[in-house]
């Protein structure tokens, strides 16, 4: 464990491991090893995300959750490591695979689950659903459903921070597939050009839906895309929470102290399909089998046990605690009211306007 805390790891999912000429930059700063209490805290957060996502998957099959539902299963160490590097006042933009990010940003499981259930107690009052979590207070400035849509927004938020002379950092999370879209490149160029305090984080889980990184990116070592914008960048083993944290701290420090953007790639497995309904038939049996070894939660449990930090019994206790928390969240969501139809026209405009058409489908435009 200690060894991996000193450097960004090199692990890659089966399909990217063959990537040519892998050379992983190492964070320059020496980092003190994480202590036992910290590690247990990380493990608990990762476990909470795992149990939350499993509970969400169950609720989806029970038709409690509608629409699309993308889970962070396998991404837990990355999520927790990244968010450990942020201050509460820092901003986070994410994509549609973001339940774990909302939890790690300090939003209660109740309010996240209630959003998935489409209830008025949800973080976005039931207007967003799984893909569009937002909490102004926690400075989670949105999950976004359009691939790459959040990237220019994050650059713009960093521009606002810089304009106002603030010391906040903006973190922008995205998937590997996003690195092929124009908005990604335009935003990195702008961030580099204007010295914006933004950390772009690419989660490389090897697959954009069912398409491999090798089949969608001419440069499958995605962090190298930073070079085109003279942007410092690194790749880190996303299954190692401490390695992710340390790499993210370095990136956040660059952004905060030097107002320089940074591109961080976290190689992190996606344990299940693209979304809850995807059986991932495009993955071979061997590949699915190898994923078990890549499970960051199982790996950390074993490491903590071997290091004498967290016994099997203590782990079971944590698990029971966390499971109770997500069960309570599901109960809270289930008991929460659906948004009232009378609120349908409340959020079209922030500044009200005359002549706004407030009609339901069968209503006439002009009443007799």
């Amino acid at each position, binding site marked *: 464990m200690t060894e991996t805390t000193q450097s960004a790891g090199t692990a890659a999912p089966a399909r990217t491991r063959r990537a040519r000429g892998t050379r992983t930059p190492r964070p320059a700063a020496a980092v003190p090893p994480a202590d036992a209490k910290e590690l247990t805290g990380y493990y608990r957060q990762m476990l909470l995300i795992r149990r939350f996502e499993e509970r969400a998957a169950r609720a989806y099959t029970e038709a409690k959750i509608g629409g699309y539902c993308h889970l962070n299963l396998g991404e837990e160490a990355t999520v927790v490591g990244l968010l450990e590097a942020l201050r509460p006042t820092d901003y986070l933009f994410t994509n549609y695979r973001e339940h774990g990010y909302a939890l790690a940003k300090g939003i209660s499981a109740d309010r996240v689950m209630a959003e998935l259930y489409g209830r008025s107690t949800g973080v*976005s009052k039931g207007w967003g659903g799984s893909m569009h979590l937002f909490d102004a207070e926690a400075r989670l400035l949105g999950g976004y459903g359009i691939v790459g*849509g959040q990237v*220019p927004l994050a650059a713009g938020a960093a521009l*606002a921070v810089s304009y106002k002379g603030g010391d906040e950092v903006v973190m922008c999370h995205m998937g590997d597939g996003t690195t092929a879209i124009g908005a990604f490149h335009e935003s990195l160029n702008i961030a580099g050009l204007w010295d914006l305090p933004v950390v772009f984080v690419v989660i490389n889980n090897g697959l954009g839906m069912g398409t491999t990184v090798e089949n969608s990116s001419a440069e499958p070592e995605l962090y190298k895309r930073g070079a085109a914008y003279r942007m410092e960048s690194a790749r880190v083993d996303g299954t190692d929470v401490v390695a992710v944290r340390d790499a993210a701290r370095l990136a956040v420090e660059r952004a905060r102290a030097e107002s320089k953007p940074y591109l961080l790639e976290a190689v992190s497995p996606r344990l299940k399909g693209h979304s809850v309904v995807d059986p991932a038939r495009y993955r071979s049996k061997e590949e699915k089998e190898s994923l078990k070894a890549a499970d960051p939660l199982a790996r950390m449990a074993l490491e903590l046990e071997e290091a004498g930090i967290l016994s099997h019994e203590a782990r079971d206790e944590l698990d029971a605690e966390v499971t109770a928390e997500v069960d309570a969240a599901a109960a809270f969501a289930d008991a929460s009211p659906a948004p009232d139809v009378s609120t349908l026209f409340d959020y*079209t*405009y922030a500044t009200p306007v005359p*002549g706004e058409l407030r009609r339901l489908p069968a209503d006439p435009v*002009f009443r007799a």
Partner: protein
Amino acid sequence: MTTATQRATVTYRQALRDTLRSEMLRDENVFLIGEEIGLFEGSYKITEGLLKEFGPRRVRDTPIAEEGFVGAAIGAAMLGLRPVVEIMTINFSLLALDQIVNHAAKIYGMFGGQASVPMVIRTPGGGGQQLGATHSQNVELFYSFIPGLKVVAPSTPAEASAMLKAAIRDDDPVLFLENLALYNTRGELPAEIDAIEPAEIGRAAVTRPGTDITIIGYSRMARVAAEVAETLAAEGISAEVVDLRSLRPLDRQTVVDSVRRTGCAVVAEDDWLTYGIGAEIAATIQEGAFDWLDAPVRRVAMAEVPLPYAKSLETAALPSAESLLAAARDTLRATGRLALENAR
């Protein structure tokens, strides 16, 4: 028209430029962002002198990356700044369509009202400048279709100033439609720039009262409509002119009230007819003034072709005072009003 021009004191361009400056002086959070707006002083010189006065922090030149800088403006607006984006022409806004439609228009509602996007996108439409098919479109319809966006289209310098102030101070994303053919047109301002009251977004105006026919237009076509009304007046026809001014929200009531007075209408637009803004106006009129109509609502719009370069073809494809006048006369004949006037 001629007398108005003689009294004119300021161009549409100057009104925009002075209003931007006035708003930047009023509110530190207002900043300009776009291609060639700083050193180059704007493709159409709307931002002339502003970089020199306010510096690069307030007047930010961007790379050619519409999706990137429009998105960045949205993100900045989410944190409380009031960006005024210039997109060189509305044709290039298509490159930022995802950011405008899926982000600017959605952020307030999709997150339950937690963040607003107080942003203005200024952009000119236009045709008739021999710019060819990709640089001559008027696609304000795309944005007018989207709840969450506001779309305004002033036709005079005074309105341009009052509406730009309103747009900048509004907490929602506003697409502010200008027109290449309007930049050099002149008009009076009601007061010094700093003292001009912001307009109320979403209100159409009856810019000329009349009793025989309603002519409806916006942006350049509102001025053409005024010209046509003047011609008709010389022939003894009393045309009422409605300048829509705002395409979303659309002031349906003003349109319907006018048609209830006149009994017939022609709507003129600088874009294609099919599925267009004229179609929405015609549908509004049939729903709100069916029993008052003495003739079908007539639409005057561009020919359904990608706009050609050659002057002969371009002129033929574009709506003009002549084509609007012809359509208005047809409509008046259908109601019997023109024949009656001629008989007198």
